[in-house]
């Protein structure tokens, strides 16, 4: 086992893609940096916190990106977002087999406020353009900074979300909610609660991530290969039936959780036996139980 969480973006890319196959677009040697950070006396990075390019993945040409959580929490600024969009457009131009996004981000980079917000929406649209072109998009969430804000939304625009157990996926961070509505609303220092609310096991049970694996780079790579293979020909684009099924799943979630405020009660409602033990369950034991009880999008009455 080797931890994916502990790797940098530049270590994740070669560990996930076939050895030696990845070519980076606009590499750091070109020194394309954010035009907005200097006026705030903030340090720049020569890749603006994201690696984008093309490589072989299981022998097929797959485009990819990795966000660097160590640079401004992986947050999306003007250049960072444009690199993602350009890569996604090129994936369509070159008829990629798939796109794999290694996401780790706090969302919009506040130092570039308005430009970052527009950029995240452009990334979302470009991801959906890729899917509309028939190319599967896979999101991998397993970094120490989690996947939050606009990128938490973007992750759910992918065909498949793969998480590690240590991964976190949500929108507003616990600190933001605590700042806005008090510690009794969300105690951001209660790490167990934060994990129960945003962590991989919870997201898997809810149906917001489709694959859950251990924090192991090889396991995440294998899961991404399987996820691409599992999407049938013609299965990448959004469809009305698919969105109606998702609508039904999200409606059911609202109905089934009325009055609940503790994730363990949500798990209990799904039928998980002994919810208090869920955080401690070994991966195999958890998955055996979870696959029987987790929510999935299904087409309801039409």
């Amino acid at each position, binding site marked *: 086992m080797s931890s994916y969480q502990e790797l940098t973006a530049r270590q994740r890319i070669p560990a996930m893609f076939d050895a030696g196959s990845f070519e980076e677009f*606009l590499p750091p040697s*070109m020194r*394309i940096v954010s*035009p*907005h950070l200097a*006026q*705030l006396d*903030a340090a720049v990075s020569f890749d603006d916190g994201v690696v984008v390019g093309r490589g072989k993945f299981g022998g097929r040409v797959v485009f990819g990106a990795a966000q660097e959580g160590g640079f401004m929490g992986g947050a999306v600024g*003007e*250049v960072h977002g*444009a*690199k993602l*969009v*350009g890569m996604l*457009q*090129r994936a369509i131009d070159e008829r990629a087999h798939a796109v794999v996004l290694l996401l780790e981000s706090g969302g*919009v980079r*506040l130092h570039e*406020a*308005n*430009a*970052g*917000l*527009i*950029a*995240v*929406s*452009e990334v*979302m649209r*470009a991801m*959906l353009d890729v899917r*509309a072109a028939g190319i599967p998009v896979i999101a991998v969430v397993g970094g120490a900074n989690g996947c939050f*804000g606009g990128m*938490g*939304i973007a*992750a*759910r625009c992918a065909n498949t979300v793969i998480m590690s157990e240590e991964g976190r*996926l*949500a*929108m*507003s961070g*616990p600190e*933001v*909610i605590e700042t806005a*509505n008090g510690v009794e*609303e969300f105690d951001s220092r209660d790490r167990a609660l934060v994990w129960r609310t945003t962590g991989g096991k919870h*997201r898997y049970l809810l149906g*917001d991530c489709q694959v859950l694996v251990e924090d192991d780079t090889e396991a995440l790579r294998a899961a991404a290969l399987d996820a691409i293979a599992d999407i049938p020909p013609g299965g990448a684009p*959004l469809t009305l039936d698919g*969105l109606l099924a*998702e*609508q039904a799943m*999200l*409606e059911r*979630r*609202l109905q089934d*959780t009325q009055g609940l*405020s503790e*994730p363990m009660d*949500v798990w209990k409602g799904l039928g998980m036996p002994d919810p208090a033990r869920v955080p401690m369950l070994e991966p195999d034991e958890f998955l055996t139980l979870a696959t029987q009880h987790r929510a999935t999008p299904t087409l309801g009455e039409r």
Partner: protein
Amino acid sequence: MDWQSVAAQLFPGGHDITEADNFLSGSAQVDGKPVAVIGTTDHTPIGIEIALAQAQAILRTVREHPGRPILILVDTQGQRLRHRDEMLGINSYMAHLGKCVDLARREGHTVIGLVYDQALSGGFITSGLIASACYALPEATIRVMGLPAMARITKVPEERLTELAKDNPVFAPGPENYLRMGGLHGIWDGDLAGELIRALADARAEDGRMALGLARGGRLMAHPVAQAVRVGSDVRPA
């Protein structure tokens, strides 16, 4: 501005928009043809219920009225900041709404966003910002976060941000900055009904906001960087 006044100016041909718990839905006549209208009012935070209600209205339009244009009326203080929303996956509800808008566009529904009062961050990114085109009224405010909160998180003094917000489109909350950056296609002043008719006619399928931001001088790097990545060339200075 309240939504009734906006609707009255937008739809001289009449409308049947109703409000329920700050959620707006209905239809209207534009240039003699029906348009579906959804939206929010009273600066309401976008929580999981209202995101889902908007998504449902869009899916219903796609099923029952193929091709009918959709107008999204935006007024929100942003995503709801509650533990329960996060626990239940508000990012998934937002993404679902965005995907429904995207599907509608691809199925031939022109989708226009109009910020008639406030737009903030998460409440805006999967509504107006994912439409075919987005517009605002001149007095609208659009931002990611208030400057005090932004100062806290970025550790940049608030006075500095306030100074920057005066003439830097990246920090200022006014619609003209989003216009310069290409995030808005235009600002509607005066004849709202005529502007809407023009917007419906002008809407394009592709996302042209980076090029707009470059042409208008408010976002100079995005377009050249994306193009350089796409065609494998060096970045040409804007």
